[in-house]
């Protein structure tokens, strides 16, 4: 019997302390903020308009004599979306009705990449290569109808279009 007990003790002493390897995983994360620079290249100027006459500036086309197309330069590394707030034009005679049209291009005054769209609901930017430094221009034109200037007091009428750009993937 003593031999048997000794056998048990020996067997337990030889039992390996089997501690197994353990592993665990955690995540590593980062969010990159979209960066872009927007520069006002030119304000939109309809020029001098005789009473009863209208004026139209079409993005992608040359501006009429005495008028200037509005242009914003956007330096970016990804696609973007734009939103805008338009404050109507006002002057000595009160409000001057106008509609505004926009278009994207690769040069300040060149042909558009895509068509025109209402500035009040800006379109997404033309597709770009993610990570590549890209310059896109937003041309801003518009129309003042002849009826809007009829009987309107002479003077300077101003308003503003404020665009907000947000980088997307």
């Amino acid at each position, binding site marked *: *019997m003593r*031999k*048997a*007990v000794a*056998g*048990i003790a*020996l*067997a*337990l002493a*030889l*039992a*390996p*302390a*089997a*501690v*197994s*390897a*353990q*592993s*665990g*995983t*955690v*995540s*590593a*994360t*980062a*969010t*990159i*903020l*979209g*960066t872009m620079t927007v520069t006002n290249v030119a304000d939109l100027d309809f020029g001098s308009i005789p009473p009863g006459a209208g004026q139209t500036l079409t993005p992608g086309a040359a501006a009429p004599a005495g008028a200037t197309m509005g242009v914003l330069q956007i330096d970016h*590394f*990804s696609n973007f979306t734009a939103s805008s707030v338009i404050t109507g034009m006002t002057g000595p005679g009160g409000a001057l009705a106008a509609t505004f049209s926009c278009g994207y291009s690769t040069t300040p005054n060149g042909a558009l990449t895509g068509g025109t769209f209402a500035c009040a609901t800006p379109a997404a930017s033309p597709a770009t290569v*993610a*990570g*590549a*430094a890209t310059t896109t221009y937003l041309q801003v034109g518009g129309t003042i109808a002849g009826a809007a200037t009829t009987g309107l007091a002479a003077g300077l009428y101003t308003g503003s279009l404020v665009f907000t750009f947000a*980088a*997307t*993937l």
Partner: protein
Amino acid sequence: MGRTWKRIGLLTCALFAAASPAVAQVALFPRQGLSFGVLTAGIADRVDPTDAARRAELEIVGEGDYTVVVQVPAALQSPEGRTLPLRFEAGDGLIRWRKSNKETPFQPGQTVSIRIPKGLGGAYVWVGGTAQPAAGQPPGGYSASITVQIIPAGT
């Protein structure tokens, strides 16, 4: 004859005991991931392993001698497959004993040997590092995994 059977029976029990592995003496618990947060393209950002809010943290519960292997990615990846390079240097990893102020710095990606004395309850593995977004790094979310393995010494 009766005594002989008793002996054989006892020996059989003893052999079963010898063949059964002991319960693991150590456990590893992931606590939180390494979070670089919101970064700006072109600007590198380092998370220090003592930064409680942003470092990766795993907890070792147990005692004994171990080799700790921290496998870190070379880059984070976006769902679109774009990469954001990472850098891990000496001191970006830190092992901190639970019940003492003892710390052992290490370089993630390399192995480190530790001894957790009896009574200290375990240790924490803290992992920091540096994210290096390129100037034109596309915006969005990036992620990867950090795997920590603890291997008992002598195995």
